[in-house]
């Protein structure tokens, strides 16, 4: 044995430690992977040994290898072994390894629960600390559930070091196990006022994170945070609180008003830039006077506005600062203002445009975001020109793509509101096709289609441009990197085909479309090529048949017949299908041509008909045919329980009984949204639809099999310029001239007429500066947007909901019953805190002088989940009790009903005062969600009076008379579960026994025959309970039936208890 130990320690001396491993890796730069794999083999050997020191050393090395990207999950069990070492040194190594590589699906985590619990309660604070740190990284829902109580206890640990860690980890526990939030919250709130600043900061941290997810629930803490904000000197805490207020002010406008003073003080007094910035940010967030339902008095609004202006000015100073960080943050805050106050931002246009030239990409991107809000008809061309310059200069594809989407966003926003010259826009789009390696080819394509379809006047120009694009298509298809951009050809081919009458040289375009090279394009583009070649062919025939020379027409047909077979062989089904159809058609036409028959008219008829834009909502205008009920279910709706299971739990939201109902409409809305999405997709693929927001939809999809088509690579290092294409720049000049001319003309006109009426378009939008109005667009966009007045679906649902509620009410008749007395328990265990009665004045009263003697629990039939508790308060001392507060901490299953507007933890003030030696009664209402279990609402706290409310199942039963025939029917229905109980040694007359059951357990006698009686009762949630009571001598047997077995079992137990007491 001794030999073994000696041998072990000698082995250890030769083991590599972490430093040796690192050194080894650094010395094996050439064959690092090989070296590491031998190291891993060594580690595996070490892990097999019994010596914990060797194991810990191995695990330590594994943690390092994990950082280098090696999967070490195979050693998870060994990590657990090291974690459970009694020595802190090894424990720390184990927990570190676990925090680096354990996650929710690591199965050995199950084994750690007890070890972690042991460490959490360790007398050594660092054991606990290490366990908490590790747990914060790998906590799972199971661990959270099992350890929530242990961690909650640690929140009140004597050492602040443990307290702050325990407080912080609670956030992770809440995330994984939301049920723990309710019981833990009071303690968390307490920690906001912890004497230790670290604990306080941790609590603020956790509550801020919680409030970010659901700010509404934390409004009640605002006064407390307000106090902290004015008293704390810790900048970290202050920043968090100010950020929290930023999230709360939109919900509670009055808060913004209150915050002005302390925030202004901070702005003036602090030297920390970070704090100053957050203050400014929150003032901005709070400044939403127009949007809030609560309008402050005018003077206050003015004050707020001035304060806001001050902050915007401060932002300007930030942006002008030489410190790039401040510049960035200033722009970031500006983008927040942009949403609510675009005008305030517009006044800083110069500055923002300047930032576009910044050498820092982060700052340029931020400035780009802001540009969206500052374009106008006047400056659009100028801004876009600037952006185009950046596009040429940009090195990274991400930044260039960002620029591209921004250009398109800016130009197309609100139905091309700011575009005055669409020729310019088309040429911008064409210029953008020169971009290499962009992912946004489809975006450009959809813009081209949209503009060509909706702006009729531009078609001649657009067709000419597209024809040139098609002619130079080889420039786009040559390079694999440029695959994204070839989507543009889809649009080009379609525009040339559809509006072929505007083509100058259709024959050339037709030839361009039928080049063999086209076969290298993705399938969906080829399909459009083939189809539009047919359209072009039709136009050509018509032109050529007018001539005397028929050979031209025949040559065109021959061209088609020569070229189309290439597409007939395509691997893409759609291309193949369209090509073979058209090929046969052309062959037939050729036959007719040889017989000198005029065919052009008939061929043209194939593609006749003008395209009309269709509004996205036009479908709604189609009347629903008679007898078709769109809301009716086609199949049986899924059962309610199922759909509820699928619903994810609303984390941290107050659970209210209403929720279950509201959810159903949500499900339907989701379904609706899904269908809407599907329809949108369908429309997006249909070029005849005008899309609501062309940028957001992916129009085309990559066809499969493209990779198999051989692609000839052309390496072009020079930026491509498509010959023969106009430059957008020239339009800037032209536009300037046009506007000049217009202005002159307008002045002339204005002299004649004072007022000039313009087409409806421009006036619909409130354009920026007044001078905007003077610029008339050169082309008009068709805007078709008509809406139906209301969404029918949602109103239907409302009706259904109301109906359901009514039905439920009808089921339950109004009746109250009164029963059960229970005396209050003084003091309970410390750990279960539930309810408190607070006496505020006079304070030095010994608590036991006051008591509430009787508690009366009544079910309320009007609402199946409400229970009324009457409490009698008696003042046994000599002092006058002025104010009392009554509070029950909500448990998972029950909740005190509080007046509207009060927070979830506020107590109810008792509406009377108690003179000495008097008693008075008060009522409180509790919501109970599940009634089948008896519950204890108990309490015990510090200087407060503790009490316990005992809710028996019987208190949920309501005496309901029942006729014997109805009773028989109920028993026969077979829905009820059976159970029975036998009582021995009951020494009382049978009618006393029945009376006792009736009194204590709220039953009514249905029928009584000799020593046998049937009884009935109903719960507040409508469960039927039937009893058959028989007696023989001192034995009483009770057979019972109920549709809720748990409830039944508990009621029987309670009956048994009643009789065991006598």
């Amino acid at each position, binding site marked *: 044995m001794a030999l073994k130990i000696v041998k072990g320690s000698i082995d250890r001396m030769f083991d590599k430690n972490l430093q040796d491993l690192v050194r080894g890796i650094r010395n094996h730069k050439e064959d690092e992977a090989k070296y590491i794999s031998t190291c891993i083999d060594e580690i595996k050997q070490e892990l097999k040994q019994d010596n914990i020191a060797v194991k810990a050393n191995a695990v330590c090395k594994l943690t390092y290898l994990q950082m280098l990207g090696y999967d070490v999950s195979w050693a998870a069990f060994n990590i657990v072994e090291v974690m459970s070492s009694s020595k802190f040194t090894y424990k720390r190594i184990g927990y570190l390894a676990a925090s680096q590589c354990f996650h929710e699906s690591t199965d050995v985590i199950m084994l750690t629960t007890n070890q972690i619990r042991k460490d959490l309660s360790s007398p050594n604070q660092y054991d606990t600390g290490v366990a908490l740190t590790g747990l914060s990284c790998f906590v799972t829902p199971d661990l959270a559930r099992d350890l929530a109580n242990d961690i909650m206890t640690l929140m009140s640990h004597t050492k602040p070091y443990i307290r702050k860690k325990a407080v912080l980890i609670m956030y992770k526990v809440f995330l994984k196990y939301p049920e723990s939030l309710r019981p833990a919250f009071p303690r968390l709130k307490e920690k906001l006022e912890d004497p230790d600043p670290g604990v306080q900061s941790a609590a603020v941290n956790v509550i801020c994170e919680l409030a970010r997810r659901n700010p509404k629930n934390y409004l009640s803490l605002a006064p407390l945070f307000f106090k902290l904000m004015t008293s704390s000197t810790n900048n970290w805490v202050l920043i968090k609180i100010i950020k929290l207020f930023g999230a709360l002010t939109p919900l509670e406008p009055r808060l913004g008003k209150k915050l002005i003073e302390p925030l202004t003080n901070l702005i003036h007094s602090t030297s920390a830039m970070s704090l100053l910035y957050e203050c400014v940010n929150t003032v901005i967030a709070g400044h939403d006077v127009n949007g809030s339902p609560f309008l402050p008095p005018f003077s206050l609004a003015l004050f707020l506005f001035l304060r806001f202006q001050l902050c915007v000015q401060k932002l300007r100073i930030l942006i002008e600062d030489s410190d*790039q960080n401040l510049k960035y943050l200033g722009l970031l805050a500006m983008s927040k203002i942009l949403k609510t106050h675009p005008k305030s931002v517009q006044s800083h246009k110069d500055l923002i445009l300047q930032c576009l030239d910044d050498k820092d990409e982060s700052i340029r991107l931020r400035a780009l975001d802001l540009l969206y809000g500052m374009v106008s008809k006047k400056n659009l061309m100028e801004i876009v020109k600037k952006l185009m310059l950046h596009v040429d200069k940009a090195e990274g594809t991400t930044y260039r793509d960002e620029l591209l989407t921004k250009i398109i966003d800016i130009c197309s926003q609100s139905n091309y509101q700011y575009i005055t010259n669409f020729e310019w826009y088309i040429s911008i789009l064409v210029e953008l096709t020169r971009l290499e390696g962009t992912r946004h080819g489809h975006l450009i394509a959809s813009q081209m289609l949209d503009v060509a379809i909706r702006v009729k006047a531009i078609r001649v120009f657009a067709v000419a441009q597209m024809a040139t694009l098609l002619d130079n298509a080889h420039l786009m298809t040559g390079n694999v990197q440029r695959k994204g951009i070839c989507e543009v050809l889809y649009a080009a081919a379609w525009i040339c085909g559809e509006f072929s009458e505007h083509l100058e040289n259709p024959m050339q375009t037709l030839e361009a479309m039928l080049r063999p090279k086209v076969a290298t394009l993705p399938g969906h583009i080829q399909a459009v090529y083939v189809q539009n070649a047919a359209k072009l062919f039709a136009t050509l025939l018509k032109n050529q048949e007018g001539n005397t020379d028929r050979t031209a027409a025949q040559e065109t047909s021959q061209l088609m017949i020569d070229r189309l077979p290439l597409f007939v062989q395509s691997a893409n089904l759609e291309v193949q299908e369209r090509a073979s159809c058209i090929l046969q058609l052309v062959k037939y036409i050729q036959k007719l041509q040889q017989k000198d028959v005029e065919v052009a008219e008939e061929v043209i008829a194939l593609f006749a008909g003008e395209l009309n834009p269709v509004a996205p909502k036009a479908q709604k205008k189609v009347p629903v045919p008679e007898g078709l009920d769109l809301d009716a279910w086609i199949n049986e709706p899924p059962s309610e329980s199922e759909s509820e299971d699928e619903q994810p739990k609303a984390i941290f939201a107050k659970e209210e009984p209403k929720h279950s109902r509201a959810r159903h409409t949500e499900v339907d809305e989701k379904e609706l949204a899904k269908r809407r999405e599907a329809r949108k997709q369908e429309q997006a693929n249909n070029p005849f639809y005008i899309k609501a927001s062309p940028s957001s939809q992916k129009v085309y999809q990559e066809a499969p099999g493209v990779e198999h088509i051989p692609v000839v690579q052309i390496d072009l290092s020079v930026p491509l310029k498509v010959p023969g294409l106009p430059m957008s720049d020239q339009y800037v000049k032209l536009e300037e001239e046009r506007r000049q001319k217009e202005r002159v003309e307008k002045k002339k006109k204005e002299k004649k007429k004072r007022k000039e009426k313009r087409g409806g378009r421009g006036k619909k939008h409130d354009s920026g500066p007044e001078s905007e109005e003077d610029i008339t667009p050169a082309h008009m966009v068709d805007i078709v947007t008509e809406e139906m007045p209301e969404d029918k679906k949602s109103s239907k649902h409302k009706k259904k909901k109301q109906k359901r509620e009514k039905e439920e009410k009808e089921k339950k008749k109004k009746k109250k019953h009164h029963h059960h007395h229970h005396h209050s328990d003084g003091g309970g265990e410390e750990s279960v805190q539930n309810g408190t009665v607070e006496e505020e004045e006079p304070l030095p009263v010994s608590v036991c002088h006051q008591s509430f003697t009787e508690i009366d629990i009544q079910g309320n039939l009007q609402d199946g989940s409400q229970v009324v508790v009457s409490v009698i308060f008696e003042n046994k001392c000599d002092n006058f009790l002025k104010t009392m507060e009554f509070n029950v901490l909500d448990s998972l299953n029950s909740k005190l009903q509080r007046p509207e507007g009060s927070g979830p933890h506020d107590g109810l003030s008792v509406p009377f005062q108690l003179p000495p030696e008097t008693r008075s009664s008060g009522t409180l209402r509790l919501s109970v969600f599940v009634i089948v279990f008896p519950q204890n609402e108990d309490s015990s706290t510090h200087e407060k009076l503790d009490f316990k409310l005992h809710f028996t199942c019987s208190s949920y039963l309501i005496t309901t008379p029942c006729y014997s025939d109805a009773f028989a029917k109920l028993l026969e229905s077979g829905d009820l579960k059976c159970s029975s109980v036998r009582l021995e040694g009951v020494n009382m007359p049978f009618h006393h026994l029945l009376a006792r059951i009736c009194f204590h357990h709220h039953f009514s006698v249905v029928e009584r025959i000799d020593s046998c009686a049937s009884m009935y009762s109903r719960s507040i949630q409508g469960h039927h309970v039937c009893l058959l009571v028989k007696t023989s001598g001192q034995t009483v047997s009770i057979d019972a039936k109920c549709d809720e077995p748990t409830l039944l079992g508990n009621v029987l137990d309670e009956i048994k208890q009643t009789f065991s007491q006598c």
Partner: protein
Amino acid sequence: MIKAILIFNNHGKPRLSKFYEHYSEDTEQQIIRETFHLVSKRDENVCNFLEGGMLIGGSDYRLIYRHYATLYFVFCVDSSESELGILDLIQVFVETLDKCFENVCELDLIFHVDKVHNILAEMVMGGMVLETNMNEIITQVDSQNKMEKSEVLTG
């Protein structure tokens, strides 16, 4: 919340990686590579913030970094953290390292990554800032190290 803390050198070699959200080892390496790529191409006198890459991030996340000699310290955080605050935190982190290692250099981090982890654990826990006071951090780290030493002696 802090999503990840990365330290790597001028060549992109990781010196410490701490993810407060689970990723597979491969993804972690990709994130480190991508972050290095994003951060290293930036000039010296530009701002310390940038949008996250494709793998880590999303619109709410931001990379906040500082460059010290041969090392980059990168924090990936969401909008609940103050940008300037995190910059200060990085400074506190580096100063703490400097005190604990006495004139810290890259080699200290290379050979003692476990110690760096232990120091970090006293500052950030589960993605939330635990302590920002340097003296408090050093006190806790020191007394834990003392405990380790006493165990070596007794064991």
